[in-house]
């Protein structure tokens, strides 16, 4: 019992003190920032309390029993009174749990219905999440935007509620979309369209993971949800809608990029690069991270990634292209202009 109490205390301490570490807050399902996550957190907390009470009662009785009824040195060898059972007692400890179960069913059903049956309001943002082995594609069909690994959504505060509704699809195997502070997880399954919604109440960068084992690099399939106040979000949309930046100072580098095999797998809007196997690179420099959260997006990291992705994310589906140093420099120089 003390063991369990210790765990509970730690959980509570964690609830209270979990703050920021590094550049994003620590995720915690009990620190929700979005309506569905809130409702889940509340019903979960209730369940934890109910279970903690049951635990205290039963474990308390058990602890009492093993101390009180232990054989002590000097006890007589006589057997204790033989008790075979009691139907009344059996009935009592069948019925009381049934009542608790009834309560749990009711509260669960309420939250299931309210989270799953929510209808998008007219101003809702719609986006499509496409799971790939081992990165995320984010599409905003109504805005004409395709991006990767960082999902931008508008802040939905009480003054301006604007939820985001996500359609979840996969092109290969099953994945699961999980950003703990915004909602529970929903699986991303090929040949099946799932949906979920979030309405983040706070701006910031919220991190999550793919939560369904999807192969070699399942561990490195991170999600960043970037919640922006409305004006910032609109600025981001406007930038994303533009074709790729044309910077004359890197015209030769651009040519170098277009002449290597990157174009088979990557799209840069406004150029001949139109592959769809890998992430869209049109606005690569607007992203904070590379390769779904594995590297921060710095020139050195970008170069290292293109030189040998297998060294950084072993088993990932981008091969090492064995570019010469010159080609590498050009490709990186060009990609660095794709704001």
């Amino acid at each position: 019992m003390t063991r369990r109490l210790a765990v509970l205390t730690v959980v509570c301490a964690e609830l209270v003190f979990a703050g920021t570490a590094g550049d994003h807050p620590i995720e915690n399902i009990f620190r929700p920032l979005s309506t569905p996550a809130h409702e889940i957190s509340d019903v979960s907390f209730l369940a934890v309390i109910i279970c903690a009470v049951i635990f205290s009662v039963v474990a308390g009785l058990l602890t009492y029993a093993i101390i009180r009824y232990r054989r002590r040195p000097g006890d007589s060898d006589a057997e204790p009174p033989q008790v075979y059972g009691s139907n009344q007692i059996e009935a009592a400890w069948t019925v009381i749990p049934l009542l608790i179960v009834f309560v749990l069913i009711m509260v669960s059903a309420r939250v299931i219905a309210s989270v799953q049956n929510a209808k998008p309001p007219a101003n809702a943002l719609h986006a499509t999440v496409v799971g790939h082995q081992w990165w995320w594609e984010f599409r905003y069909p109504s805005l004409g935007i395709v991006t990767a690994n960082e999902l931008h959504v508008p802040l939905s505060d009480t003054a301006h509620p604007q939820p985001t509704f996500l359609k979840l699809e996969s092109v290969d195997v099953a994945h699961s979309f999980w950003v703990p502070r915004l909602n529970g997880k929903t699986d991303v399954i090929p040949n099946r369209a799932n949906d979920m919604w979030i309405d983040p109440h706070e701006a910031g960068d919220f991190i999550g993971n793919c939560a369904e084992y999807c192969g070699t690099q399942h561990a490195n399939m991170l999600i960043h949800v970037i919640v922006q106040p409305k004006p910032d979000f609109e600025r981001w949309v406007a930038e994303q809608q533009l074709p790729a930046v044309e910077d004359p100072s890197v015209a030769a580098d651009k040519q170098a990029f277009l002449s290597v095999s990157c174009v088979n797998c990557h799209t840069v809007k406004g150029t001949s690069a139109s592959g769809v196997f890998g992430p869209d690179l049109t606005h690569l420099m607007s992203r904070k991270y590379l390769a779904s959260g594995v590297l921060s997006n710095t020139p050195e990291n970008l170069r290292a990634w293109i030189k040998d992705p297998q060294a950084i994310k072993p088993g990932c589906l981008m091969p090492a292209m064995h570019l010469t140093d010159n080609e590498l420099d050009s490709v990186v120089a060009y990609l660095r202009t794709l704001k």
Partner: protein
Amino acid sequence: MATVDYPLEKSRRQREFSLSEALYSWVATVDHKRLGLMYMTSAIIFFLIAGVMAMVIRAQLIVPENHVVGPQTFNRLFTMHGTTMVFLVGMPIIAGMSNYLIPLMIGARDMAFPRLNAFGYWIFLFGGILLYFSYLGANGLFGAGSAPDVGWFAYAPLTERAFSRGTSTDYWILGILVSGIGSIVSAINVIATTLSMRCKGMKLSRMPLFVWVMVVDAWMVILALPPLTAGQVMLLFDRYLGANFFNTQAGGSAVLWQHFFWIFGHPEVYILIFPAFATVSEVVPVFSRKPIFGRQAMVGAVVAIGFISFGVWAHHMFAVGMAPISNIFFATASFLVAVPTGVKIFNWLATIWGGKIRFATPMLFCVAFIFQFLIAGLTGVMLAVTPFDWQLTDSYFVVAHFHYTLTGSFLFGVFAAIYYWFPKATGKMLSETIGKWHFWLLVIGFHLTFDPQHILGILGMPRRVYTYAPGRGWEPWNMISSIGAAIQAIAIICFAWNVIRALIKGERAGDDPWDAWTLEWTTTSPPPEYNYETDPEVRSSRPLWDLKHPEDPDWKYE
């Protein structure tokens, strides 16, 4: 009862003096006790192998961005760890314990189908070896081998040819499919034996609770394994005959596999926990010196769990996007399982209540079992709260929960059983001192390993990740967890030492070292090949109590 040296036994022992003859006698045996011990020994060997895998897994995760193993190796490790523990440790332990104990407990001379029994063991072992052969042969013998890496529930379409090339997934399918034949065979045998071979006076109502639980378990094995086998055969069709059951690239359904798997998989978790239930229901009364409280309720609860557990499988699938009504249905069914499960815990508690508890090692494991199983049950209730599950499923919380059921409960129950029946099977006592070291180290190691994993889940750590970045609040908990794993390993070494030591120079056990009440303690330790010289006869569910207390026998109250 005195230890009798039967002339028949003696002559056999002389014959076995040559090694090849001894070996032959084990390979060709159809004796339920030898087969039971062979099942247990194989299970323990697989347990040690899968345990070493767990150690490597925890070594990799002890600090963020660690490089003990790479992603491919790590993924194979957790796949083989899970698959081994469930199919090559849990299942043969069920078969082993039922085989060894049921005929003894019901006063029979062997199982109903001795040769089928031997077949079951050998086919199980073949399946296990086939699975491990993948390490050598899974890319075809010409290339380097590789073990399966699709996770123990092998979700489609990751298992389809497009994503799982080579033959490692086929080894997973065939190894389990074949070893499953062994489980089915042994389940059929258990049912036939208990229905037709009980000794005189052993009415079903007097059958030891252990036997009752194992019979229900056998029924569940028979009903639960076929869906898995069917799913696996369909998967083979997909992989080799161009079928598209689960092939999403051609209109197949990924969710269909999940239904097939979990309609097996959920009953399976109860199948695995039942031997622990069975053991605790025998050990707790003996060491509390009281009969089990509410015998009929205990039987009823086990049957109820058996039934309900077939209606809860989709609680493993709350995140696949089922309709709200399905989610509510499966949540309700899952909550309901908690009721008979609670009844069992309360009855064990009531058995202890008012007793005179002897804390020998078997009892220590049982008490820890009750505490830990209580927690496992309560985290299970939390997971049945569908919205809570949306957060917790596939996180480390789930890892913690099912290790509470399989390590904290099943394994503790099995250790209780080993400490309790080892004297019967070998005639030697395990050391109580080493036993207590084993117990306390395991308790400490277990809690250090798995308690923090609940918190990791709450902090968003998904399961099955070979690495994680620093700065997400996960480091201390992973560190503690890995240290705990090492302590568990030391506990297991104590156990191994205890067994080896006892076999070499253990104290003689005698027929009835625990002053127990069921039939197996009337015969010698170890029992002769034919178990009982004369067919026993019982008049109550505690025949030895009747014998020891003629002034106040149980049958007076039946």
